[in-house]
């Protein structure tokens, strides 16, 4: 065996804590999840090998498909809303105006506040009888919206709240993207006599494509990780309409003690997330740039 140089020894010393950490909290759980998926286990009694039964159960589990559908509903509202609102405010901020730093700081503020606090706040804004949003609506003579009590509206309401909380990050990302676009492109367009709309659709938007990919991917991962909002606001209801994937995994593990099935759900969700994210990248990247 060759002798280690002293700098090599130092290097191994520096990385050793991480290697141990990785083995304990990443590698072991990954391997153990593969074992767990083939077992029935309530943590107390010994594990019981059940082969692929967790998977066949999942394939026929209406609540799994419900939670998957709910996540898609969430993303269907959340992603377009997030991208348009973030882009609109980034465009407003990306000009010579006073108080830019102030506005940016205010828009960003909901991002840093605890999701629990934001959820408690919105619970009161969304209240049906005397919530703030409904009293604004009724004062304009409009009907009340059943924000959280109607199963066809509740998930959209949660998506709206999540957009409000997170859009600040994406405003900042868009702003950075806008500032990276070279001035020369705009000057050339001006010389060609392009209208502002033409400039927006043939220069600004295509140049922001990388930022849009990042935003879509991050929002998707966020949507699949949705937990505390439905946990506090609706408990997954009404009629399971806000049962998110993460909430379902949590319930299976901690209300029913189905550790094997919860691990299977976690694994399948993880695979779906990876697949969706890869697909999104492919789709958005292959879109022709004019």
């Amino acid at each position, binding site marked *: 065996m060759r002798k280690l140089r002293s700098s090599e020894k130092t290097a191994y010393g520096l990385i050793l804590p991480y290697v141990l950490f990785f083995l304990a909290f990443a590698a072991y*759980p990954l391997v153990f999840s593969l074992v*767990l998926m083939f077992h029935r286990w309530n943590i107390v009694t010994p594990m019981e090998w059940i082969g692929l039964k967790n998977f066949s159960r999942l394939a026929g589990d209406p609540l799994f498909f419900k939670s998957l559908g709910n996540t898609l509903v969430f993303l269907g509202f959340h992603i377009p809303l997030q991208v348009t609102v973030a882009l609109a*405010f980034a465009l407003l901020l990306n000009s010579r105006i006073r108080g830019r730093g102030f506005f940016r700081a205010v828009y960003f503020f909901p991002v840093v506040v605890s999701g629990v606090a934001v959820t408690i706040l919105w619970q009161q804004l969304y209240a049906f009888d005397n919530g703030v949003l409904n009293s604004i609506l009724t004062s304009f003579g409009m009907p009340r919206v059943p924000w959280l009590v109607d199963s066809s509206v509740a998930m959209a309401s949660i998506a709206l709240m999540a957009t409000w909380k997170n859009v600040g990050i994406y405003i900042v990302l868009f702003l950075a993207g806008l500032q990276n676009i070279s001035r020369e492109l705009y000057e050339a367009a001006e010389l060609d006599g392009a209208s502002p709309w033409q400039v927006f659709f043939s220069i600004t938007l295509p140049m922001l494509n990388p930022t849009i990919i*990042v935003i879509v991917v991050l929002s998707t991962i966020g949507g699949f990780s949705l937990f505390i909002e439905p946990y506090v606001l609706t408990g997954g209801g009404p009629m399971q309409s806000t049962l998110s994937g993460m909430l379902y995994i949590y319930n299976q593990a901690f209300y029913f003690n189905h550790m094997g099935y919860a691990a299977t759900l976690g694994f399948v*969700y993880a695979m779906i997330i990876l697949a969706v994210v890869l697909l999104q990248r492919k789709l958005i990247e292959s879109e022709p740039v004019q």
Partner: protein
Amino acid sequence: MKNLWKYAGLLLGAVVFGYPFLWMIAGSFKPEMEIARLGLWSDHFTAQGYTLVISKIPIARAFVNSILVSLCVTGSVVLFGSMVGYALARLRFGGRRVLYLVILFTMMIPFQIVLIPQYILMVKLGWTDTYLALVAPTMMSAFSIVLFRQFFMAIPQALIDAARIDGCSELRILFTVVWPLSRPVIVTVAVLTFMTSWNEVLWPLMVVRERSLMTMPQIVTLFTIGGEAESQLGALLAAATLLSLPVIIAYAFFQRYFIESMASSGLKG
């Protein structure tokens, strides 16, 4: 004229994103009957909501727990993250490439897959209902290692060589030459880690049932859904205000760092 429209839009945004928090803080001091109103002022401000929160849940203890956990996690992520980042960026050793690939790989794993096995690991180790369970699984972060590595690669080799010639050990170089030059990345990692740790609630809900060990967002969550708030809106808003207050104060001072850190974390995707 064109700018007027811009300011109108920006101002509308400021109201939409900022006003609800003012309303939340004002509401936490209002009597029950007046909370639903849109305005901020009340002639009958009261601290009843806060009294109820303090009498029902050990919120001060939860605050101390949250501070302790977040500080430990942040210190550890910065210390170990910079050590690994330095080794990857500046030292040659067998397996360096493999290690880097492994770190990139762990960043891609959706947490859903390891969450349940990690919980079971805590049970097996007997760490549930201890601080260890709250701290250990987040003590190091692959993303912070990548940030440190990137930053350290840009430090001039001459500085490191000079220190080596002076006979400094690599560890001393890291802490006395590299660290002082790396304030931006240290602040970024620290702010990001502290905030994530402070706001984390799913993991504490899983591993801690003992009230005296609960973190602040956790105990406020249970206060909200568990009926202890007795449906008192003022108490709920008071709990939410107490929970956001430390972040509001930190944000007032370090706003720029918060925004820059989060923006750089966006590049993770």
